[in-house]
Every structure is written in structure tokens, then in C-alpha cells.
């Protein structure tokens, strides 16, 4: 792949990350009082506040603080958590695999069910299956994911008792961890099934109307091969783009699933830090979440160039 083709994407990614750093830093200036007082609460002694202020570097001038903040984030070191005394970076590294597993499982679920459903509907537009899918997918997309999570929790904790509803499973027991992953994945991924199905259907119908498909048909290529191979490759591009954009919503969904199912993860880490008014941990967690989001979009952009030779030609 041409470096020149990827360069603009990398540049815009860096711009977004810089903007995120600036915003996160500006917010620390906007905290009523200051982060140290917010952390320690109203009954802290002046000596304790002064000690924490010095430890967090809050006594330095604003430009110095901004510079140090950006250097630290760019290096991926987030400093030491004042509350637990542990490096914030390792706190995040500890919970990140749980969030990544949840996000990956949700995307896999959405693709596994959404793509075939979209193809099936596009093959017979206007048919009964298509109309049922159209309504069903709106319903799946429209129901808030935390309501799905609550409904699953209610169903499985009160009625079904088949799957665990709390935690992430015993460490070192992959089967148990997998069982704990099922309900959160359903909660996050259910809406995505409808989303993916609609995208695939819409772009497939557009692609099927193009002349090259008619040519393929004239050459006697089978219906299944045209639909699943020739058309799908082109139809996949807009769907992929939407998945990149939707990844942010997926992370949002993971926050709710992690809190409702009491699962460790980036979302519950950020949430607990907000509750404890531990702003440095909130900052680091939010920055990593934004990093994940832009990385997902960069990966999708790179995937486009690989899938679509026209884009490669245009960029080169």
C-alpha cells in the first residue's frame, strides 16, 4: 500500500488526538475549585491539599502544565493514581482487554447476523422478508442499549438463571469468562445487528443496479456468486465506513454494559473515577477511549484502500 495514501488519514488522526488533549486539559482548568480539592473533598486540611497540589504539579504555570500533560499522554504514561498509589497506565492496561473483548464480540455478533440478513433482504427487495427486516432493524436500532442490558439482566437474574449476570468470570478460566461475555455482548451488539443489516441491504441494492452486475449476469455467472462475491465486495465499503463511525457508539454501549453487569473495563473504570472525583484517572481513561476510536477509524480507512483499488489510484 502507498504511504502517500494513508498519510492524510494519519494527519487528521493526530489533529483529533491533539484536540482531545487540549480539551481534556482545558477541562481541568474548568473544574470548580481545582482537581486536588475536588479529589480530597471539602473537609481536607490545607496541608493535605498543598501536598496533593504539589504532587499533581498543579502549582506550576498553565503553559508548563499543558506541555507536561501532552508529553505524558503522548508517551502513554499517565502518572501515578493519587488514590491507590498505582500507575494509572497499568490500571488501564488491566481492564482494557475486557473492553476490547466485549467490543470485538459485539462487532462479530453484528456482522455474523447482520450481513446475511442484509444480503437476504437485498436479494428480494420489497418481499415479505425485506419488509419484516426493515421494521425489525429499526426496532433493534431504536431500543437504547442500556434498556436491552437491563431487560437481559432482569430476565436472566429473575427468570432464566442460565447465564451469569455479574462480573467477568474467574481469571484463568476461559470458558467461564466466555459465559460471562454472552449477556453484555448481546446488550451491546443487538442494536448493531439491525444497523449492519440496513447498511448492507442499502449499499447492496445500489451495487446490484450497476452495469457490471448486468454484464456478469450476461456471462452466465450464477446468482449466488454475483450476490455474495462480486456485489458484496463493493457493497462492503460503505458498511465498513459506518462501522468505523459507529465504533464510538459501541464504546458508549460498553460503558453501560460494564456498569450494569458489574464487569471490569474501561467504561467502569472511567465511571468509578468520576464517582470518586479522581479526575486524572478520568482524563487518562477518556483519552484511551478516544485513542481506540480514532485507531478504529484509521484501521477502517486503511481497509478501504485495500478493498477499493479506485481509492488507491486516486490517492497515489
Amino acid at each position, binding site marked *: 500500500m502507498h504511504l502517500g495514501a494513508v498519510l492524510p488519514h494519519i494527519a487528521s488522526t493526530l489533529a483529533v488526538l491533539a484536540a482531545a488533549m487540549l480539551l481534556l486539559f482545558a477541562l481541568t482548568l474548568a473544574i470548580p475549585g481545582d482537581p486536588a480539592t475536588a479529589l480530597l473533598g471539602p473537609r481536607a486540611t490545607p496541608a493535605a491539599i498543598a501536598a496533593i497540589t504539589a504532587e499533581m504539579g498543579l502549582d506550576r504555570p498553565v503553559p508548563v502544565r499543558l506541555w507536561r500533560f501532552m508529553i505524558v499522554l503522548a508517551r502513554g504514561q499517565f502518572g501515578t493514581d493519587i488514590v491507590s498509589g498505582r500507575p494509572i497506565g497499568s490500571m488501564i492496561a488491566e481492564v482494557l482487554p475486557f473492553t476490547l473483548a466485549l467490543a470485538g464480540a459485539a462487532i462479530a455478533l453484528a456482522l455474523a447476523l447482520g450481513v446475511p440478513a442484509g444480503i437476504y433482504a437485498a436479494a428480494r427487495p420489497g418481499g415479505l422478508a425485506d419488509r419484516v427486516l426493515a421494521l425489525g432493524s429499526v426496532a433493534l436500532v431504536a431500543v437504547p442499549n442500556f434498556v436491552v442490558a*437491563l431487560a437481559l439482566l432482569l430476565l436472566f437474574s429473575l427468570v432464566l438463571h442460565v447465564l451469569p449476570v455479574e462480573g467477568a468470570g474467574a481469571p484463568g478460566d476461559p470458558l467461564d469468562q466466555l459465559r460471562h461475555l454472552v449477556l453484555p455482548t448481546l446488550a451491546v451488539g443487538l442494536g448493531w445487528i439491525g444497523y449492519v443489516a440496513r447498511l448492507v441491504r442499502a449499499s447492496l441494492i445500489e451495487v446490484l443496479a450497476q452495469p457490471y452486475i448486468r454484464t456478469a449476469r450476461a456471462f452466465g455467472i450464477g446468482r449466488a456468486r454475483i450476490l455474495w462475491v462480486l456485489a458484496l465486495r463493493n457493497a462492503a465499503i460503505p458498511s465498513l465506513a459506518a462501522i468505523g463511525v459507529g465504533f464510538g457508539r459501541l464504546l*458508549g454501549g460498553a460503558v453501560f454494559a460494564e456498569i450494569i453487569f458489574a464487569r471490569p473495563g474501561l467504561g467502569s473504570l*472511567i465511571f468509578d473515577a468520576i464517582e470518586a472525583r479522581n479526575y486524572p484517572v478520568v482524563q487518562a481513561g477518556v483519552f484511551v477511549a478516544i485513542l481506540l476510536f480514532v485507531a478504529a477509524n484509521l484501521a477502517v480507512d486503511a481497509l478501504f484502500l485495500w478493498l477499493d483499488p479506485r481509492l488507491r489510484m486516486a490517492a497515489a
Partner: protein
Amino acid sequence: MKVLRRSPGGSAGAALVLSVLIFGLLGPLLSPYDPTGIDVAQRFAAPSWLHPFGTDQLGRDLATRLAYATRLALGLASGTVALALLGGVGLGAGTAFAAPRLAQIVLIGFDVLAAFPSLILALAIIAALGRGIDRLVPIIAASLLPHFGRIARAQALGLRSAAFVEAERALGASTGRILVMHILPNMLGPLVVLASLDLPVVVTLEAGLSFLGLGVTPPLASLGTMLSEGFANLIRSPAPLLAAGAVLVAMTLGFSLLGEALRDGLDPRLRSLS
């Protein structure tokens, strides 16, 4: 009306929206109870003639609280979307007529704003500034703004070279007059339809943040706070959780179905914009 007759999903959506509107607008007026009135003797009362949905953990009438929460959600959602629409259209249409360099800066701003996952961004801002409706509305509006801004820009660019605009310019009209009198009225229709599709998104975000305890502050009744209170008292009674969840789903589902039917019925080309 003709649009709805052709689409079963649209009519179902219209029925849901209508019932939600009636419930949210008339409920608070008709209810004899105070939504924050505590009656500890009546905690977790089962549904009865006096309390059609029962009561919550503080003995407050659930039906009344739900009606107030519905009204709040309707008001917040329409206010937020209106704010985003206003800002997005102003900035977006403005870029079509502004100096290219200035337009570029605004467009980069849209890109950066759109590049943040909205819930995560809201978490960061609320963590720093504290919760409350006055924070919630601008944060959510800002996250929707780039979407409207880009569409408004595309439409304004298209209209800029339309024959009637050229004619107006030849007659000596100023850019401001052309923008307000000619461009805006012509692009508003499709944008309003697209905006209606964002209503369920805003309702969901508001309820979600309030569910986390980061949005609407208790004792004010909101669907999100009612869900989280129901969640906390799940073992005593699942009714509050179920009732709040049902109203929230009716609202998001209704607005989505109706919005999609309107969009497809009025202008199929809009499908590609949203």
C-alpha cells in the same frame, strides 16, 4: 397522512408518538399527585385505582412521575435538537458563502467535533463541570451539530448557483438577504425531517446519562433516574424499572419509525444523507 397510510411502520410510529405526547403533555395536568411527594406508608404499592402503575421506593406515584419524566424528555430532546439544528445550519450555510480560509477552519472544527465519541466526551465534560440539565443540553447539541452543519453546507452550496439566487444577486440583494430569505427556507424542509431522526438519539443519551447519575438531578423525575432507581430496587419490585423502560422504548421506537417513514415518504434522496 398519505405517507403514513402507505407505511405500516410509520403508522405504528405515529400512534406511539401520539400516545407518548398525550401522556407527557396531559398526564402532569391531570394527575392529582405531586411527582416529588413522598408517602413512605405507600412504598412499593401494587398497581391499584389510586396508583395505576403502583408506587416507587419512596411511595411516589409512578404514573405521575412517568408523565413528568416523559414531558421532561420531550422538552429536552426537542430543545437540544433545535439548538443543534440552529447552530449547524447557521455555521454550515455560512461556510458556503464565507471566505474559503474561514470555511476551512469551520469544517475542520466539524471534523474534530464529530471525531469524539459523544457519550465518552459527555462523561469527560460532566466529570469536570458537574451534572445538570444546563450542561447536558449544550454537550449533546454540540455532538449533533457537525452532522447538520455538513448537510446544510452541501445544500447551501447547491443552492448558491441556482438560477433564482443568481437572479436575486443581479437585482442587487446582499449575501445576508439571500441567505436568510432564499437559501434557508429552501433547505429547511429536509433538515427538519433529518432532525426528527435525531430526537430518539437525544432521548437515549439524556436517559443514559441520567441513568448513570450524570444527567438530570434527583428528585426531578426523568426516565433515566427512574430506570436507575428501579434498577437499585429491583429485588423489592421490578415494576418501576419495567414501567420506565417501556415508556423510554415507546418514545425512541415511535420517533424512529415515524421519522424514517416521513423521510422515505417525503424525499427518498434524504436516505443517503443520514
